[in-house]
């Protein structure tokens, strides 16, 4: 029974962390799938999302759903502008574009330190209390993250499948030239895809703000994890990001619960090396031709 409690607790925590990784990795892999750019600034947009939610929730005192919406829209628009101004000039030159995103990351993080200071801020809980199911206890604040992440991902999936822009994005990801011939405007699709991608990161940041804390440095770990997730799931594959994100969250939680945090870190990285050796394209990725 005690073992069951331990496993249930580890599973829940794994799903919470996994849900955050999914949102991060889906955006990350979207940018790569469509634009062939590895966005090193992805973690900074997560941080900006967390700060936007923090300020709107604490100072404006508005419902948290609105805070999420504001974070997604403002950071999404900012992302689209950044793409237009700083990444578009390097189209076709993937290495320079990657270096540009690295520069954007440093600029955003240092500006955040200058403006908001380096001290972590505590965001009040959105929901309080714990769901008690027999011997199991699940904090509502963490259940909320899973539910919200699932809804956000469902909306994103629907957008990609059912709307013209979503279909156009998928077409560009599959074959840029063919999409051009069909009359898809790449110059419109790229900033939109980038904006959508960083809006997902911002939503992840906004959701995790109340669970942990908010500071200019919070984006680093999720960014590194997003890397691991897309390697696990396959670079450019959205189903791969979902499977990889949940898998990594669960592995991380179970190993830390069973063996402690130091062993957990070792096991995770061993897994990544193993996957790279056995399936270099990732679990659901396709080998580049």
């Amino acid at each position, binding site marked *: 029974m005690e073992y069951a409690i331990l496993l249930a*607790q580890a599973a829940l925590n794994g799903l919470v962390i996994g849900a955050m990784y999914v949102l991060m990795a889906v955006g990350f892999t979207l940018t790569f799938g469509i634009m062939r750019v590895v966005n090193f600034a992805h973690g900074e947009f997560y941080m900006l999302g967390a700060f936007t939610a923090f300020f709107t929730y604490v100072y404006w005192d508005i419902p948290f759903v609105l805070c999420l919406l504001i974070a997604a829209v403002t950071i999404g628009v900012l992302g689209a502008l950044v793409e237009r101004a700083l990444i578009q000039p390097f189209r076709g030159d993937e290495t320079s574009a990657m270096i540009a995103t690295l520069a954007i990351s440093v600029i955003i993080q240092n500006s955040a330190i200058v403006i908001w200071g380096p001290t972590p801020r505590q965001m009040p809980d959105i929901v309080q209390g714990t769901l008690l199911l027999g011997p199991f*206890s699940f904090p509502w*604040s*963490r259940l909320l993250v899973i539910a919200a992440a699932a809804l956000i991902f469902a909306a994103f999936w629907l957008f990609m499948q059912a709307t013209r822009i979503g279909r156009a994005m998928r077409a560009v990801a599959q074959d840029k030239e063919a999409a051009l011939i069909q009359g898809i405007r790449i110059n419109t699709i790229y900033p939109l895809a980038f904006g959508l991608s960083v809006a997902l990161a911002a939503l992840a940041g906004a959701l995790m703000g109340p669970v942990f804390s908010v500071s200019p440095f919070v984006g680093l*770990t999720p960014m590194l994890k997003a890397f691991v997730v897309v390697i696990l799931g396959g670079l450019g594959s959205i189903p791969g990001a979902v499977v990889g994100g949940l898998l990594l969250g669960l592995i*991380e939680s179970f190993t830390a*619960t069973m063996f402690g*945090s130091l062993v957990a870190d070792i096991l995770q990285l061993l897994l990544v090396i193993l996957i790279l050796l056995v399936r270099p394209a990732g679990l659901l990725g396709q080998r580049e031709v």
Partner: protein
Amino acid sequence: MRKLSKIAIVSCALSLSLPAVSAETLKLGVLATLSGSGTAWGIAMQGAAELAAEDVNSRGGLEVAGKKYTVEITAYDDRYKAADALTAVNRLIFDDQIKFIVGPLGSAPALAVLPVSTENKVITMTLAFTPKALSPDFPYSFRPVIPTDVFSDPQVKWVVDKLGAKRIGTLYPNDESGQQVSIANEAAYNKVGATFVAKEPFERERVDFVPLLTRVLAQKIDAFELDGNAPQTAGLLVKQLRELGFKGPIIRTGGDATPDILQIAGKEAAENIYVHQAVDPASPVMKEYTRRFEAKYKVPMNAFSPFFYANIQALFSAMKQAGTVTDTDKVRETMLGMSNFATVLGKVNWTGEAQWKSNQQLDAPFYVAVLKDGAPQIVARCNPTECK
């Protein structure tokens, strides 16, 4: 005759134009953690220095050997890291020509800084709990705060007797500062028949403790020890422990983190927590100091602050008596010679000879408090041998 009258006029003019004592500047350095999870302690130290400077300057400056000195504070952030602390101490000593430093803060930074400050005869006032911070090798190192290896024995004995707790769980940061406190606490618990049945190290940057706490709680612990974790971390630990359904007592045998615990975990989660309480918050002098601090810094005052203020009070008094602001040997000797010196903490003395062969530990009473309705209530008064 004409020459004489000229001299008389010039000396008259001089005596009119110059004040009775000339104005000079006395620089005091602050070397502490001003960003990241140890910030609450760093601000406490910086605040003590700035308030002490404000007090002296508002009276026209510190008068030493016929000169009035305006006190100026220069503060640097060490980010709780030894390498950054070393850079900062070199800047303070060589660029800013400072002879008196409030700091260093953490144990790892202290071990990096003390050889340099000692070599340059710079007086330091550290918060580091490591036993290595006071030693005959570091004759200029003073410690105004009471460290774990002084308060852990009496406090742990009192708390364990009261709660009857035998199985203790803990998490500690995996570095010199974290390990030192954890070792002292484990020894104190073992002495009174309780054991750490679950203890886990973690990297200082960690914010999600749920997997580790789940692991600790699986060991059926009677109480959780917050150890010397930084204030922010202590707050997150309490929050996440209570979210996991742990209702048992939580013990804080480490530096003051009460304001952060209350802010992060909330009043309700912070019930049934036994904390080391450095000062009596009900004393009128302390109330006034707290009010001033909080009005100026807009954050809850950390209880370490008045200890540094008391040490600076002793330092200023020693400078006056010794008649110098540059000869640190004389200032040190004069400060060590002071007994029953009246400070913001009440009357204080120096101790530590038996424990560290260095009599440079500030001696003041301390307390055990329990958190109730969002405030610490003192439940025991302690000295290094017992709490009651």
